[in-house]
């Protein structure tokens, strides 16, 4: 049932969100001292949230926890992690169903699709009609057919996206150095990655930049593909046996060598789970040719060696998610009416140790506003 929200409460919530975002990175440090959201003791009577996560709690969930702390809200949270194995999502969703939570929280496109399916199929594994779903870290919710548009899902769910518009990403690259050619590696089996590549191709063509986009070759074998259209297919880590028909990580060094031969100014790291999983190899190989990487997601620059990133801070996204949870579970707002949220402010990040290693220094103007990472990647 829809309950109208008290404007004073809404204002207080908004203030908390803004203040917390302003405090930003400082709070991240503070949250490190507190017990993890997933490990907290459950309290009787508090609403129960089940989180289906790709690789355990991330900075996003730290943001959620911080929001709860700031607003003094108590929720019981159960975390179910796929440990970077997408084949486990179906099982995790089943587990979640059994727990009968008050809200299901899904992290990433694959987890979300495993739980709610596309709107076309309308065959959700999770009983969405009874329990609301909040998705996050879905780069292309519309293209992935999770929602029809950003105005509202029309189903008993809502969510948030971390994607920085590609135009802004291109401008961020151009601000760092003159760009005439950009290299890109993508997994042809991932819909969001292919979509991203096409959009980037159209944009670069418009402004006269050449995009050298190379798909990762698939392991040869029988053609019966396990992946359905519209479903992300993710590879395991590089050391594991690669299934037939899946992208082959062993081909990466050769792909990077081909891109390096094209004299690109940046290697673009898109929202691609395969590339994300193999980022160390990809970015490291590129650096050996003196090619810096640019990323639109926080992970590759905080945890990897990308030189430049224009990202939505995961922590801030977590704060946003916290406020969405409050609106759904405490204010009783109908999730289908809540628009899919994005953040309007992005952070420009430069990894200085990489800049110094390859001698591609940031312009003075960028030093005025960028967040500079000076140490080695974690």
């Amino acid at each position, binding site marked *: 049932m829809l309950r109208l929200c008290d404007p004073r409460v809404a204002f207080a919530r908004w203030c908390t969100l803004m203040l917390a975002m302003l405090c930003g990175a400082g709070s991240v440090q503070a949250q490190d001292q507190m017990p993890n959201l997933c490990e907290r003791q459950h309290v009787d009577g508090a609403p129960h949230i089940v989180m289906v996560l790709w690789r355990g709690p991330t900075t996003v969930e730290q943001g959620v926890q911080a929001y709860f702390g700031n607003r003094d809200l108590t929720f019981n949270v159960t975390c179910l992690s796929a440990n970077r194995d997408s084949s486990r999502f179906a099982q995790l969703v089943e587990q979640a169903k059994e727990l009968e939570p008050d809200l299901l929280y899904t992290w990433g496109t694959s987890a979300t699709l495993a739980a709610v399916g596309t709107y076309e199929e309308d065959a959700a594994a999770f009983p969405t009609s009874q329990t609301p779903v909040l998705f996050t870290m879905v780069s292309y919710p519309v293209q992935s057919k999770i929602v029809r548009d950003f105005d509202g899902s029309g189903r008993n769910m809502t969510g948030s996206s971390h994607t920085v518009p590609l135009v802004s990403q291109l401008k961020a690259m151009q601000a760092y*150095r003159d760009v005439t050619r950009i290299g890109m590696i993508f997994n042809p089996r991932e819909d969001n990655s292919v979509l991203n590549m096409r959009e980037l191709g159209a944009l670069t063509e418009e402004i006269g930049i050449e995009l050298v986009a190379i798909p990762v070759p698939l392991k040869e074998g029988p053609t019966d593909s396990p992946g359905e259209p519209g479903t992300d297919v993710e590879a395991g880590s590089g050391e594991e046996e690669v299934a037939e028909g899946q992208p082959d990580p062993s081909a990466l060094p050769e792909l990077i060598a081909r891109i390096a031969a094209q004299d690109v100014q940046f290697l673009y790291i898109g929202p691609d789970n395969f590339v994300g999983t193999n980022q160390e190899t990809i970015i490291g190989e590129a650096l050996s040719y003196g090619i810096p990487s640019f990323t639109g997601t926080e992970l590759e620059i905080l945890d990897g060696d990308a030189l430049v990133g224009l990202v939505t801070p995961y922590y801030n996204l977590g704060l946003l998610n916290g406020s969405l949870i409050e609106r759904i579970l405490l204010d009783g707002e109908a999730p289908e009416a809540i628009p899919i949220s994005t953040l309007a402010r992005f952070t420009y990040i430069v990894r200085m140790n990489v800049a110094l290693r390859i001698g591609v*220094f940031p312009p003075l*103007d960028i030093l005025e506003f960028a967040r500079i990472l000076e140490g080695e990647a974690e």
Partner: protein
Amino acid sequence: MDQMSRRFALFILSVAVLCLVVSVGALGLRSIGLLERNVRPILETNALVVTERVRDRIESAVAMGIPYEGLAQVDEYLDRALEGSHGISSIVLASPSGVEMYASGRAQSNQTRTEAEASNSSQQAEPDRLRDRGLQVLPASIQNELLRWLSPEMSATGNRARSSTTGNGVVTLPLLTADGTEFGQIVTRIDQTFVAQQLLDAAADILVMVFVAVVLAVEILLVVMSASISSPLAQVARLLNAVVGKDFRRLEKPAGGASMRRAIRAGNALLEALSTRMADLKARIETGLADAADADRMRTRLRAVGAFVEDGRNKIGTTAHLAGVRGAAFLFVMTEELTRPFLPQFISEVLGSGPAPGFDGMDSTILIAVPISTFMLGAAVVGTLAAGWADRVGRRNGFMIGAALASLGLVITAFAPSLAILILARTVSGVGYALCFLSCQGQAIDQTTTANRTRGMSVFVGGIMAADVCGPAIGGILAEQFGFQLALLVAAGLGLLSILLAMRLLDGRDEAAQSYKSTHFGFEPRIVLECMSQPRFLVAALLAALPAKLLLSGFLFFLVPLLLTDIGATSNEIGRITMLYGASALILMSLFSRLCDRFGLHAFMVSVGALLTGWGLVPLAYGATVSAVAWSVLVLGVAQAMSISAQSALFTILAKREIGTYGPGRVLGIYRMTERAGSVIGPLLAGILSQYWGLAGAAAILGGLSVVTGTGFAAFFLVSGLRSEDDDLKTRGTRGYDVETV
């Protein structure tokens, strides 16, 4: 005596103007000194802040490990740092030994100049030198006194205390690593021309304001002096002159100060007593003396005593005088001139950003032109058709109705909620303006005889021209300080003030007392046809009279304010620039008309004026800056002073036969009519042109139009020539018959 009172007035005026010029000039110089004293430290501090900011950025980049020589996009960074700060000419990053490594754009392109600047920087700044050179003509002791007063921080020429961080307009800071090792230096140079430019601008403003103050003071003095001193003095003189000339018929109306009134009353009483006794005497002669021969003798002797009224009742003369006309003309023209610098901008504000209801599909620039044109239209129609009516209601009444209408129009304009109301209000103001004009012109002619009419008219025109100078400058200041609406209300207030003045200074008598009838100016199609069928008259009307006014209203009243606002000028500056037109007319008009009359240069002056106007505007096609527009306005003023004074004389020559038949008023009325048509068309045409070519483009095209018509006019008269039999007319100066400013 008249001569004496004029000399007396001239003396008072000269003394007043001298005092004003000296005091305002000294104040101006002092304010320049203060400005300079305040601007320099601000510039130095600013340069230091900018330098420190750049230094911090470079040092932090180097601290991150980026090598100094490997910094990226430094020149662009320096350019941007320079862009946001006034008064810095260059920022240079150098090695510790001083070898330049990075520089802002201007520093790179002007390397030699900055070097020269650095070596010269110990010299005095330009304005100091100019001023000091001026002071050198004075004795040393006075020099020092003056200098101390002008710039209190200077005890002697050039001894300026310099900031220790900013030696000679150059800020130099070392670039240090965290451990204090110098790895380079940053050198910022203060733009010396920036200070000079600021001071020159201030000086120009002060000069303009001195000029406006003097003109305004002269106008006020003229009216006040005339009403309280010279006019009563002239009355006393007339009284005495009459007595000396044995004319005892006329009394003077007491005017002026108390003692002056007493003197006039005493004179009047004396004359009245004389008249009564003379009438008595006459009656006694007619009735008491039977002897016809005696009576005849006595009558002859009485006539020899002087001229007396028949019935013993003296007629009292009027106090109305030319100065009154001048004051009234000054005030009512002022009401309009005040609005010149901001009216187009005000109209565009009333229009707002959305489309005006009822005017769908029209470009907003054209819509701005409409109210300006309807003012001209109202003035043109009434000026052409209502002359007879204005005569019938009398000078004072006509003026008061006109001024009331003009003020009403201005008040409505100030509160106009829509374009339609604004158009109506402007039309009402135009009608009022024309009525005031007709009344003043009528009285100026009433007050003069054919012999001194030209001078009389020049007194009237003087008031108008003074308003042309003061109005825009003061209006600009008012608009800048208090907003458009209040400036409009002040203008309306001036209109009401002019009504009060008219009650005191204008002739309140009815039609019978008027020596001159405007019906002579009546509009008659038959005469229009007759004149226009004459090729010379037609060419002069269409290629000279019409374009001249078209340019005036289209460019000066419409394009200039909009263009300058577009460039970013304040109402203040717009007022001062618009004023240049009136100032050049005020200074040059009489000179040109004298030259024109003496050498018979009418057609020549008209052509040169038109061509000059044109070529003054055409350069705006290459980009309009504030100074470019100011030059165009100045050239327009000079050129129109040249052509306008020649035009009416030219028409009297061209239409000699028609003037002989119908009188000068009606024939010259046709010339005025074409002028008014030009005034109406001007803003509309400029609005349409600017829709396609922008404001500056429209101004340039108007200039081109003037070049074309001027060339056509010159070619036509070079081929056809003026009629030789009219030579005698060339110097007669019939200009005085009518004038027009709208």
